[in-house]
């Protein structure tokens, strides 16, 4: 990724990111406010997720840790009264943290797909068995 440093690793979704310290709800400029999650490299970075908590944090941590390219993965909720979740990923030689995070999300979605399918099957089977008796 030429010309692109992962220092700008503040994850921004489509929602506006407002500066909580500002009175007039000023938006956070990722480029300016880079010390927020600074010190990132291609193979080690921290991501900040707005509006997420242990629900996604722990599930994502688990699935990313299942990736053999990952040296370390952990998450934290820096402060209980701020709806923010930080996720740290460090990878082994040369593997991009972005690719790892993306694979983690894909794997988790695939897992949900299997759970949904199997749940419906199990339920229908249980109902069918009950009807017979």
């Amino acid at each position, binding site marked *: 990724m030429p010309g692109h440093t992962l220092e700008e690793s503040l994850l921004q979704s489509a929602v506006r990111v407002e500066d909580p310290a500002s009175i007039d709800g000023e938006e956070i400029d990722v480029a300016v406010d880079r010390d927020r999650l600074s010190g990132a490299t291609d193979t080690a970075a921290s991501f900040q997720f707005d509006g997420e908590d242990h629900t996604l944090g722990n599930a994502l941590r688990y699935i990313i840790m299942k990736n053999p390219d990952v040296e370390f993965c952990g998450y934290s909720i820096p402060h209980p009264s701020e709806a923010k979740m930080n996720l740290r990923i460090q990878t082994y030689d040369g593997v991009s943290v972005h690719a790892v995070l993306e694979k983690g999300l894909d794997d988790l979605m695939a897992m*949900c797909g299997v759970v949904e399918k199997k749940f*419906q099957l*199990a339920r229908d089977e249980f109902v069918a068995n009950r009807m017979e008796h």
Partner: protein
Amino acid sequence: MPVPSAEELTKRKRVEVGIETVSNQASTDFPGHWPGESHEWDIEHFEKKFDIRFHKYHPHDAEFSLVGIDTSVANAFRRIMLAEIPTLAIETVFINQNTSIVQDEVLAHRLGLIPLQGSKEGLDWMRWYHQPTEDDPGSGSPSDYNCVQLHLDVKCEWQEDGLKRVAQGETDPDRLYTGHNVYARDIVYTPTGKQHDIFDKEPIKPVHPQILIAKLRPKQEITLMMHAVKGVGQDHAKFSPVATASYRLLPTIDITKPIVGADAKKFARCFPRKVIALEEVTAQDVQEHPELKGQEGEAKAVVADPMSDTVSRECLRHAEFKAKVKLGRVRDHFIFRVESTGQRDSDELFLESVRLLKVKCQRIKRGLNEMMR
């Protein structure tokens, strides 16, 4: 690549419950933990090992097991069911008259906690309502697609001859007044706009008509209007679609040395009923355990239904059982119990939680792509 034995795999999955301690709590199925073993995420492997079994299935109460999934994901489903699935609940109460002894704010709070039900398609059709503030217009004034109007109009009166009966010493309110108990069924839904069609067959009403809201005495009245909106449990518990959504791990009881005779009966009494059954000591048992010689035909404790155990650890308090039994739980066997408050069915709630976790991932993936641009 070394393949761990079935025995070793069972041992890894076992959370050991001691008299005062719990050991082997954390899962170890990660790459790099066991030398030479892979443990890489593999969807096919997961699909093969993962299993769901139902134990109880009622519209508002379901019990099922998820087997072969990690705690982090099972817990995510539970947390989503509690806090992130939207439901409809009374949010604003406009009180015209309240001469009952229940204070306005207490009454409003009680009303908010009443679970509502109605057409499922209708509830899905409903949108969010954001209260306008000084610098944010929010959703503006409430509309048919984001707000449900309800009324409560009750007044208590004397029954005919009620005053006469009171003079005779009658104290039973049911024989003296009318409308002295205000129940949830007295709440009247007033459809507006498109709601006429959408909630035509299944109008909005309280799930339990018998909830007592307030008690009145003659000439006291309550006249009020309510706005019910969609919300999530994160914001207020009244929006939570479940009464409880919880899981527990499957308990295990391993009898390592035979427990026979009077001890067997005492052992069975250490557990909830039917968890331990009594069988006769057979010739084969005597062959396997020479110490049982001469006890053939006596009672022997066997594990019949570990799922009903509460893991009270009572058996570990008795010296005679300490060395003969091992208690534990299976780390990847989650027995879920989902009790719905009535707006959605229990099984739908679980499916919704799975879908919501997927949607969360999708949203973040989109954000990630945007960041990379």
